[in-house]
């Protein structure tokens, strides 16, 4: 297959790297979660793209349908989406609590606050 035939994979890899980069490089806790979400979404594509055949239908056993798409990856990814949503929701809830406790959602400011507390103790 040509590079164009692998289009879905290129998009997957791009999203994967972009998400991971945001996750690592950003200090804002919300932006990190955005990166995490993109990172997880790229995997949905990795599963679904190979399951789809052009011109394929749902697996209906009948005369006029010859080419089927594989439904299993879709089902798996439905589960993965649910997991992703739950993770994102929990992450956002934690950020709300962090904001209440620290009054900031910047990672470096939070670390500085923790360090200050530690030094005051000693």
């Amino acid at each position: 297959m040509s590079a164009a035939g692998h289009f879905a994979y290129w998009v997957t890899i791009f999203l994967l790297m972009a998400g991971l980069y945001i996750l690592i490089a950003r200090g804002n806790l919300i932006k990190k979660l955005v990166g995490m979400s993109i990172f997880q979404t790229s995997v949905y594509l990795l599963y679904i793209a190979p399951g789809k055949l052009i011109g394929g239908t749902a697996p209906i056993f009948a005369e006029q349908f010859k080419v089927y798409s594989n439904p299993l990856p879709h089902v798996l990814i439905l589960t993965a989406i649910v997991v992703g949503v739950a993770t994102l929701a929990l992450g956002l809830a934690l950020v709300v609590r962090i904001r209440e406790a620290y009054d900031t959602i910047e990672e470096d400011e939070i670390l500085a606050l923790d360090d200050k507390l530690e030094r005051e103790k000693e």
Partner: protein
Amino acid sequence: MISAHLPALQVALPLIAAPLMVLVRRGGIAYGMMLAVAWISLLISLLLAQQVADHGPISYHLGSWAPPWGIEYRVDALSAFVLVLVSLAAAAVVPYSRRSVEAEVSREQHYLFYAMFALCLTGLLGITITGDAFNIFVFLEVSSLSTYVLIALGRDRRALTAAYQYLIMGTIGATFIVIGVGLLYLMTGSLNLVDIAQRLPDVAERRPVLAALAFLTVGISLKLALFPLHLWLPNAYTYAPSSISAFLAATATKVSVYVLIRFYYSVFGETLVFKELPVPLVLLALSLAAMFIASFAALYQENLKRLFAYSSVAQIGYITLGLSLDSVGGLSAAIVHLFNHALAKGALFMLLGGIMLRTGGVSLHCVCGLARRMPLTTFGIVIAGLSLIGVPGTAGFVSKWALITAALEAGLWWLVLLIVASSLLAVAYVWRFVEAAYLRAPAPEATEKIEAPWSMLVPAWVLVALSVYLGFDTRFTLGGATRAAQMLFGAGG
């Protein structure tokens, strides 16, 4: 009749209990249910272990759908062993939780705490029992998400950031695992672990398979806190509520080690992973780094929970070291250390929870002269610490001995020296506690006895006693581990 459905019950019981606890909304009732669930789980896992020992591996078809289409629950010598470990930890930690949760978690959240605990137990048992690759991911997320919540329930506000950090790193790990499973599915068209293993040799294109192996290795290593992917662990263990620190230290990383062993030996096969690729070399180097760097880090900690969290990273190094030796001896040393370390660490964190309750902190200056005020707690910590070091007469010695024997079998005498040297580091960090608790004088105004409540001492001491008992009677631990290792090598070729 019911004994045929034990594999399903093992997972379904805590899974059904969790929403029921949320519905009743009473902390006391939720606690009672959780206690029943944990003890029945222990019973089920022991029965399963007995069945496996008598009749060989159990294959349970969920909803009677035959594998590879349906989801298969598979209990063999290794998973039965880990199931017993997880449910034993839960059975010990739940009775302990009552007092410690009352002190650390606000009252209206108690039922939620136990519901999350039940879900966490579900996830860990599910990961261990399932024979389906995607199912592993789902259970992994069930246990991880509930763990994040449980850690965030800690009193300190740093528990929130610890939970957030773990959420980010855990999700990266889990996503890597899904990518690995996805690539395996693309190449073999199957999700059943046994089925994948049978189809893999026929796969012509090797590169995606190797990529799957790499993604799975990194993803699982994040979850098992293999050095240098351990950064989430110290904070998570330090700021979580005491009973959760104990439960996680005893189970979470151990179950991930199980998943790694499962994928290496039962799916990819020993030949591919250990003979054709430099995996053993990488594992060896990282294990040694963990054993030394994490032990040194432990030496400089003021907070005892954090000290023993770093010690956990070091001890995981011993487990992966056993794996990297690629022999029946090495693998069984890894599996037996998984069990023995879980007992010692579970006991340690439970006893530290008692100190936390009575003195309000677990930093080294809080425990000055504590031996006179909490004699049972401190003595328990010392014995569990001896097991960490690997002193003869404790369970830790059995696994260290197995590890050293395996290293000698492989002809790596320098490795033996390194194992002993890193044990000396363990002596040093355990000594820091002993020195503070036994040799330093308590503050003059604080001399009255403040022993931890019985409900917290007894479960912890049960684990301490087991750590000593299993140092002498190795039939279940070393015997079980050796059987599991022989089975894995038999299956791998």
